[in-house]
């Protein structure tokens, strides 16, 4: 999977609840530790990236949170103001008063405006070379195609004007697999895997952006090898349960049964998940790298969890 972090722009997506923010934060941390100048941008500002790094809230203006690592939150209105200032030399908010007033309306009404301002800002940071890598905590699988397809859509809808000429250089960045890519995060569960496979199929056709990697998050460890599993099954026999309960360190048969039942549940959950991951591998394993991140029993979120996910990704990335 080496080369993933050599791209300039990486969109991290996945079904809601799979831990895409944690993975985005971990990729950013990893690249920064490799000496890159990194920007991690949260597209739907909820403060999740800042919470992942356990630092003060991010704003539209990027802020360094550790050596080489910067964070920002997308603000489409601020992005519009920046765009107008840079491209049309409309200097002050005062003079674009009517634009600001109409902004919410147009952004909600005209398709792709919000999206183009989001993707445009990200591509701008890449084009200007402010960062070696921009990692985007992007929209969930349900919305990402709309977001990434905005430049293509605008190109089709808008025949002339400044925006049309802007979309060309954005598409040059987005459609080049060496510069941009999408990283889909999933968990070993049915719907997240379905959505990952579905998105992978639509991505290049509808947006022109390439699939860079798959990350399977919260993968349970394999408890037993085949032979060991036979031993485990035999442990459930009444005489074995009784023998395990007897003697020092033992307990009632009920307690022994509870301990065995917990392990059996873990085995079954893992097996169900493994089936979904096999499906994922069969569908997409040959088209892009697939990294596994283990389930973190001890801590589910915060900076320590991000660090552990980053370590796991580093190992899988082989860097």
């Amino acid at each position, binding site marked *: 999977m080496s080369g993933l972090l050599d791209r300039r722009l990486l969109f991290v997506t996945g079904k809601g609840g799979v831990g895409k923010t944690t993975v985005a934060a971990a990729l950013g941390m990893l690249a920064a530790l490799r000496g890159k100048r990194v920007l991690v941008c949260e597209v739907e500002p909820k403060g999740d990236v800042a919470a992942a790094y356990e630092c003060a809230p991010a704003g539209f203006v990027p802020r360094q949170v550790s050596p080489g690592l910067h964070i920002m939150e997308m603000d489409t209105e601020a992005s519009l103001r920046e765009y107008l200032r840079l491209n049309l030399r409309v200097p002050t908010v005062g003079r674009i008063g009517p634009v600001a*007033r109409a902004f919410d309306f147009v952004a909600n009404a005209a398709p792709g405006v919000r999206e183009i301002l989001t993707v445009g800002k990200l591509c701008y940071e890449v084009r200007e070379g402010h960062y070696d890598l921009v990692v985007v905590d992007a929209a969930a699988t349900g919305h990402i195609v709309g977001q990434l397809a905005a430049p293509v859509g605008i190109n089709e809808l808008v025949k002339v004007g400044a925006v049309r000429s802007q979309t060309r250089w954005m598409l040059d960045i987005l459609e080049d697999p060496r510069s941009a890519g999408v990283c889909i995060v999933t968990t070993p569960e049915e719907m997240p895997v379905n959505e990952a496979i579905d998105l992978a199929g639509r991505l290049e056709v509808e947006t022109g952006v390439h699939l860079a990697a798959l990350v399977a998050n919260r993968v349970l460890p394999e408890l037993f090898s085949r032979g060991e599993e036979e031993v485990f099954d035999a442990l459930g026999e009444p005489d074995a349960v009784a023998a395990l309960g007897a003697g020092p360190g033992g307990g009632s048969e009920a307690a022994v049964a509870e301990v065995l039942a917990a392990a059996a549940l873990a085995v079954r959950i893992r097996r169900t998940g493994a089936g979904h991951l096999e499906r994922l591998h069969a569908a997409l394993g040959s088209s892009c790298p697939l990294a596994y991140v283990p389930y973190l029993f*001890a801590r589910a979120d915060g900076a320590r969890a991000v660090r552990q996910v980053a370590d796991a990704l580093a190992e899988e990335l082989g860097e």
Partner: protein
Amino acid sequence: MTRSAPRPAAPTPLESLLGTREVVIACGPGGVGKTTTAAAIATTMSVRTPAKVLVLTVDPARRLADALGVAGIGNTASRVPAAAFSAAGVRQKGELWAAMLDTKQSWDALVRRHAPDATTAAQIFANPIYHNITGRFAQSHEYIAMERLYEIHAEGTYDLVVVDTPPTRDALDFLDAPGRMADFFASGLLRWLVAPSRSRLVGLASRPFYQVADRILGTQFLGDVAEFFLLFQSMYDGFVSRAQAVSSLLGDARTTFMLVTTLETVPSVEATRFAAELAQRRLHLGLLVVNKVLPASLADPEAITVAEALQSEPAARAHALLAALPGGLAGASEEMVARVLAEVGRSFTSFGLVASRQRELLAEMAASHEVTATVPHLAADVVDLRGLLAIGRHVLDASGE
């Protein structure tokens, strides 16, 4: 065929609650099992009560869609055959119907209903902006789900409608969608934007806007946008009164909400916030369902002692075990048995950690809101009616904690 597990003859409190309601709206953060839980209570109510129940689902897993017979049927409701219930070993008192939510189809139907004439409807369908908006307009999905609910409810075909809400950026979006849609069409800005295509005389105040907008977007695109909204404006009255009716249905005494969550940090925080928001809006939270709960035995002190011993001295435990079993254990060596025992202990401890986090989050949630049911963490996916009925039992038979 196994029969469904015996259950109390009298209806449970939650069953009675649902018996007095006409609409249940399932909501909550993404990835917590909302769709499955909605399907489960609809299925269970159709078995236990002589009601005609509809589950309006958004995006079910393929195998669940197959179980409900809704795979690929779009907006049209279809009945889950009674034979499927007898095959699952249960007798159904009522009927179960299922429908999917197809955003595009629903928008088209809405336009046909509210457009003043067929020509206007055809013009709207032909407008390039329309396709983009119905597919991508930030609130279109949320709005259309509530709109469809209203339509189905108004038809009065079903005794109980259970709605699954679409995954949104924010779990609360759909509550505001009808109101926002009404605001949108009522806004002066709409008229203002549409103005230039009605008249070439653009007011002084808006001239800078059009100049800037023309330079950025081009006149033709603005023309498309203006035409689209001009056409849409002809549906204004229909839309606004409809949106108000949808809003009032959400607050109606015949509607209740089912909040679904899991005991992970982010979903449970979001769920608690959502419950508070419902209360603030005086919307009725009838069910708070917590999914994927690990077994209580993970906190049993005696079991913890057993697991710790397995982990700390697996060799001794393996030796003692094999000594007590003259027939051996699947022919395994002492080393192998020790490895298995250590792994069993480790697994218990690991899941015990997760379970203790779950207990903390559950206690926090229960302090502010009544948790009406906890559903155990299931090892396998729910793929058939039997699985749905098992979940329905957990949700509806719970006495509350």
